[in-house]
């Protein structure tokens, strides 16, 4: 459960609300305050703990540790942007019912003509079960597709770290506040689907249910990540660093890069020459080019052909995350 730090409306001291609670007590002035649940969706934020320099240093350290200092020095830092990624958090109870019907079988002992004992399966009446569902709900889900940012563990972090109410102008001045793409209706559906998954209706031939969220505590939690750009030659290498714990979440720095300009040029020329001479030669030269390609690279995958033609063949795993 997340802890949210507010300002006491009476004395201004920071005071904490636990996710799911309606009321909290100011430790400083002793006043009890309530959080208004019907004035909109609270936007909360986990503040960034590391700045751009720290993020850059975290990446440099990773490169030096895994690729050596010379390798690390071959990449130039080009800049970085702080992003606040939105996550839905839903806290409450999933309440409703589930009905399921399943087939039942029993084993019956029988004897054949020779008097040998055997058992056979006999279908019994279908079993119908109505059950009440009442489960605590603690759900977190990205409010959009953030796979480009790698596997940020923000949903989990919200349960451990202290959040504050988002001051939009201040956050927007520090970074890019990403708009939620996934609506709250979809997030609620996902949360309810999860609560039904564990409701035990395996093997049923029919299933009906109606589950709703009760005592809902809904919030949009923003989590900070640094998106950095590094370059080597004219290639750019994007990096994502968790702006709370400094972990490099996503990057890919290949060990070395070599360009084979001759092979793609020769193959293209060969094909062009064939097709401009006559169709039969075109077909023959294309097949020849394919053969040479396979012989040289050991592959005929479209992605490998594209890589070769665009000059991005890279060797070695290098340093990779995410």
């Amino acid at each position, binding site marked *: 459960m997340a802890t949210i730090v*507010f*300002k*006491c*409306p*009476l004395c201004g001291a920071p005071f904490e609300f*636990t996710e*799911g*609670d*309606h*009321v*909290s*007590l100011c430790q400083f002035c002793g*006043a*009890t*305050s*309530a*959080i*208004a*649940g*019907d*004035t*909109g*969706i*609270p*936007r909360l934020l986990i503040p960034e703990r590391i700045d751009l320099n720290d993020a850059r240093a975290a990446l440099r350290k990773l490169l030096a540790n895994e690729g050596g200092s010379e390798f690390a020095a071959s990449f130039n830092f080009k800049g970085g942007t702080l992003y606040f990624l939105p996550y839905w958090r839903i806290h409450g*109870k999933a*309440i*409703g*019912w589930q*009905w399921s*019907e399943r087939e039942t079988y029993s084993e019956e002992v029988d004897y054949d003509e020779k008097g040998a004992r055997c058992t056979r399966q006999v279908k019994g009446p279908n079993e*119908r*079960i*109505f059950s*009440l569902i*009442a489960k605590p709900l603690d759900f977190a889900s990205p409010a959009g597709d953030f796979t480009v940012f790698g596997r940020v563990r923000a949903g989990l972090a919200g349960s451990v770290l202290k959040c504050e*109410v*988002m001051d*939009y102008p201040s956050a927007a001045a520090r970074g890019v506040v990403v708009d939620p793409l996934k609506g709250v209706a979809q997030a609620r559906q996902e949360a309810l689907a999860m609560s039904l998954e564990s409701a035990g209706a395996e093997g049923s031939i*029919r299933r*009906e249910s*109606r589950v*709703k969220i*009760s*005592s809902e505590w809904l919030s949009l939690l923003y989590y900070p990540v640094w998106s950095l750009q590094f370059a080597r030659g004219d290639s750019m290498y994007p990096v994502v660093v968790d702006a709370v714990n400094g972990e490099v979440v996503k990057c890919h720095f290949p060990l070395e890069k070599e360009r084979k300009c001759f092979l793609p040029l020769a193959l293209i020329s060969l094909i062009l020459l064939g097709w401009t001479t006559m169709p039969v030669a075109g077909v023959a030269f294309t097949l020849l080019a394919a053969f040479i390609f396979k012989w040289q690279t050991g592959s005929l995958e479209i992605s490998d052909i594209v890589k070769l033609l665009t000059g991005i063949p890279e060797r070695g795993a290098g340093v990779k995350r995410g």
Partner: protein
Amino acid sequence: MADAFVKIVPLICGRCSQRMTAQREQVVYQCGTCGSSWELRAGLISARPVIHLSGKGALLLPFWNARFQMTCEVGNVVDLSGFLPLCGSVKQPGDKGTQPLMLNIPAFALPPHQAVKLARNMLVRFPVFGQSRAVDKPFEAVTLAESDIHTLAELIVLSAIVEKRRSNPNFLTSFSVQLYDSQLVTIPFDRDGNRYNQVDLNLEV
């Protein structure tokens, strides 16, 4: 960013301006000084009328009391004479047959299974309470918000209709409950260790 703000409201009695205290999960706040009751509506402290029903017992337990109708595959059910046969009850409603259907949903902290059971027992006993003349008496903390009573109401009504809910999925999928005129009431109970009991209704939780 219209929904960007969070409103924190100090609990100050709207009648006598004294500070009120409350437990973490509480949604209705009673002033310890003057006894009036309050809740948050649209971010403002607003009066919440509470009706105390009369009966035997020293402990006042809060309930959301509401009239209801139900819809299912056989049509609308609006009174006891329509509802009792669905429950498989042999009880005769007598002159109560045309009375509207009434739910009392526990508003105090009680696990959902127990809340459903208690309310179901009250529903099938169709109690009629008198109204106590007392006002602003202290009662147990209200933890169920009025906005959350509908889900529980459907479960309570369903739990009374034992046979149909088990055997007929079409009944279940067509089933719904409509609530009217909900109000916060208290019903007196006696406390016996961990149990609450209501002598007039022969109820125990």
